[in-house]
């Protein structure tokens, strides 16, 4: 069976890849494109470790077919920092020790960016419900939520 040739945009750059019709975006990002920052935790859309943005919408990349990205834009964890500067969300995750093993961190940072684009001033409860699709087994979420709220304050220009 012939492979599909897909032209898309990943992290602001034009990108193309070959894939089979059944392959997920997660699989192709990792094994095809070589962007290993997007993590696989379940492949059933339950853990959020593979979160990416597709045309500005937060999706688990394990539930998107790679071929569906034709002509669309994909943003992954690799596109969150700008040049030599970490994104404020990344910086706040570090300052608050909001990661232990770090496997859920890329997905959580992508999801947090999606949250703060929609809602720059979330309450703790809003942050917890928005991020309920991203499992973390190490932290108990406390320091993650603190990092998210602190990043939101910083991005609003308020002193953290």
């Amino acid at each position, binding site marked *: 069976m012939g492979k599909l040739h897909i032209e898309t945009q990943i992290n602001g750059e034009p990108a193309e890849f070959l894939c*089979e019709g059944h392959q997920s975006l997660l*699989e192709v990002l990792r*094994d095809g494109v070589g962007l290993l920052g997007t993590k696989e935790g379940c492949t059933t859309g339950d853990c959020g470790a593979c979160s990416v943005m597709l045309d500005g919408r937060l999706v688990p990349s394990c539930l998107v077919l790679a071929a569906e990205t034709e002509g669309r834009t994909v943003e992954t964890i690799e596109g969150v920092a700008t040049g030599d500067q970490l994104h404020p969300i990344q910086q706040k995750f570090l300052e608050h020790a909001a990661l232990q*093993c770090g*496997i859920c961190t890329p997905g959580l940072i992508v999801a947090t960016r999606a949250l703060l684009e929609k809602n720059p001033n979330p309450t703790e409860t809003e942050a917890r419900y928005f*991020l309920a699709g991203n499992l973390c*087994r190490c932290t108990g979420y406390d*320091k993650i939520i603190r990092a998210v709220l602190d990043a939101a304050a910083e991005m609003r220009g308020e002193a953290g």
Partner: protein
Amino acid sequence: MSKRKFKYVGTRPIRPDGVEKVTGRANYGADIMLPGMLHGAIARSEHAHARIVRIDTSAAEAMDGVRAVLTGADFPDIPNQWMGDDEGGIDFGAIAQNCMARDRVLYHGHALAAVAATTTAIAQEACRRIEVEYEVLPAVMDLDTALSPDATILHPEAHVRDGQPSNIATKIVYEGGELDDAFTQADVIVEREFKTPMVHQGYIEPHGCTVRFNEDGKYTIWCSTQGAFGVQMFAAMVLGLDPNLIKCVPTEIGGGFGGKTTIYLEPVAMLLARHTGRPVRMVMTREEVFRASGPTSGGQVRVKIGAKRDGTFVAGDCEITLEAGAFRGSPAGAAAMTALSSYRFPSYRIQSYDVVVNKPKVAAYRAPGAPISNFAVESCIDELSRELEIDPIELRLQNAVEEGDRAPYGPVFKQIGLRETLEQARAHPHYSAPLGENQGRGIACGFWFNAGLQSSAIVSVNADGSAIVRTGNPDIGGSRASMAIMVAEEIGIPVERVRPMVGDTESVGYTDLTGGSRVTFATGMAVIEASQKVVLQLRERAAIIWGVEVDDVRWEDGVAYGLNAAADQDPMPLHVVAPQLRTTGGPVVASAQVSPPAAGPGFATHICDIEVDPETGRSQVVRYTTVQDAGKAVHPSYVEGQMQGGAAQGIGWALNEEYVWDEDGKVENPGFLDYRMPVASDLPMIDTVIVEVPNPIHPYGVRGVGETPIVPPLATVANAMRSATGVRFEQLPMSPPRVLAATDETGS
């Protein structure tokens, strides 16, 4: 020791490996790609217990892209032999059979064949085309069945009790005093029986490895593990190889909680790599993680505690029965060792049974066994406090162990902080805050003995005055930061000037696993000692530069100061000494190794407020506080992180998590949708209070902190539920249907 004033210990620098982990650059177990790599997959048993009559791999082998198909017949026979004692140990024959079944499959998910192919999809399809003829055997799915007189016996040749084949692999007993007599002295006796389900560690990263075989017989394994030296040794034992032929390079690890202290895929990938001459990567699916890796035991615990009217405990009796899964090795020993260790019981008896059943072989899970026995004991103590009408913290303070008390399993406690955690919990605003409607509050304590084991470390100083520290412990929760802090403290340079590194089996001295809450404690001791040797060498170099004796040089906070004959020398900081290393004797490198026989135990007290919806039985933890003795917190943020994470896992165990089996013994919920771990909206902020009662074994007073936090929550939540609903829950999880049924029954 406790008088020492620290400059870096106790601060909260950003972890050295942090940027890689927030940018997605860090490489985990599934992230190692080699040129020409094949992809492996495993065919697993569809039955909980069956004899394998025949395996036909021809259809799988005929597929395009399939390069090798293996079954148990391709693996060497490793005899069963228990290495260890009743309290714990290992059987490499069982590990080998768990990695690949031979003539029998013992649980739904047991590996029975493996494929290497050019893509994962082809390998998985080939696994589906492997035809297995089974002779299905009765599945032993619970403890009552396993212990019944006519039970199917899983390992008739291995476990014999009273002359009869048995599913009981081990029995452990600790006794002291005159139990029967003591109970007659009690004014109040509480006796109850508890049940907890099999639960999974739930690490987000599935097991994964990549293996390369060289024609000289040498293997390199890249994998996500809690201990590279363990992988090397286990894989060698399972394949009958010289460990020297195996190099293990630990990748970053995406959670383990004890579940990555053993091997599953590695020997399979090794044989596939050897058979094909190509590198092979294997990664479990989430379903495989649930069906074939890690869980901890389901258990039954009967507890009887007697007390005087004034609250003094006079006797404790526990009978603990734990599921081992398909092979011997439940944490029956640790569950027994910890059961009654928090309080003084003048008379006690603890009996603990390790029982095999047709479920996945259990692996370590954070303070293995302790949460199960602690749930039962601390629930009974809560009942006692109600019957005696004594405040639950006061009752515990009245009976709490302290320095000089002997634990039922033998050791005499040195300085410990149980009493301090109780006092801090009582003083915390949480404990006296008003409760809302349908809310209840519970408290419980927990104990874990922690491990010492073996560690080594290498510290070197560079010509620019920076330092490198190499250890052999995979960094599962921020330990690189702790190692860097300790080097910084000893040498006297900023933490950012220390680069910590996790070595492989060929770049560091032998080091036991990341487990037992031992890394910052034991590996830290090696790091401190190696750093102190570095400081001695730096003083020697300063002495050479000044032309004096080493005793004429004092080193403080990164600076050499002259004494005696060198009293008139200007102080010389490290950045002046370091460039002169090449002319004063060459590089400064030091190593150290430790093997502490004990670790210094950890105690904690937790407080939980829960709100229960009487209409649905759904509960929500609305406030949670953890108080724990850390001895000395090296990086307080990561100590708090352990306390919060352990509490969250324990809350999940208490309220929602459980394996669900169908009547044939098949796992019905092998995924995160149906195996319900806590998500962000399930939990409140988790408040932390770090108590510091110095551990006399450690130069800074450090205690392990990783495991203790999962011990109290099961009982803490159950005691809160008792307060909210009036119902004593003796079975976990306290899921909404169970809560609704119980509260309907009592009309509360």
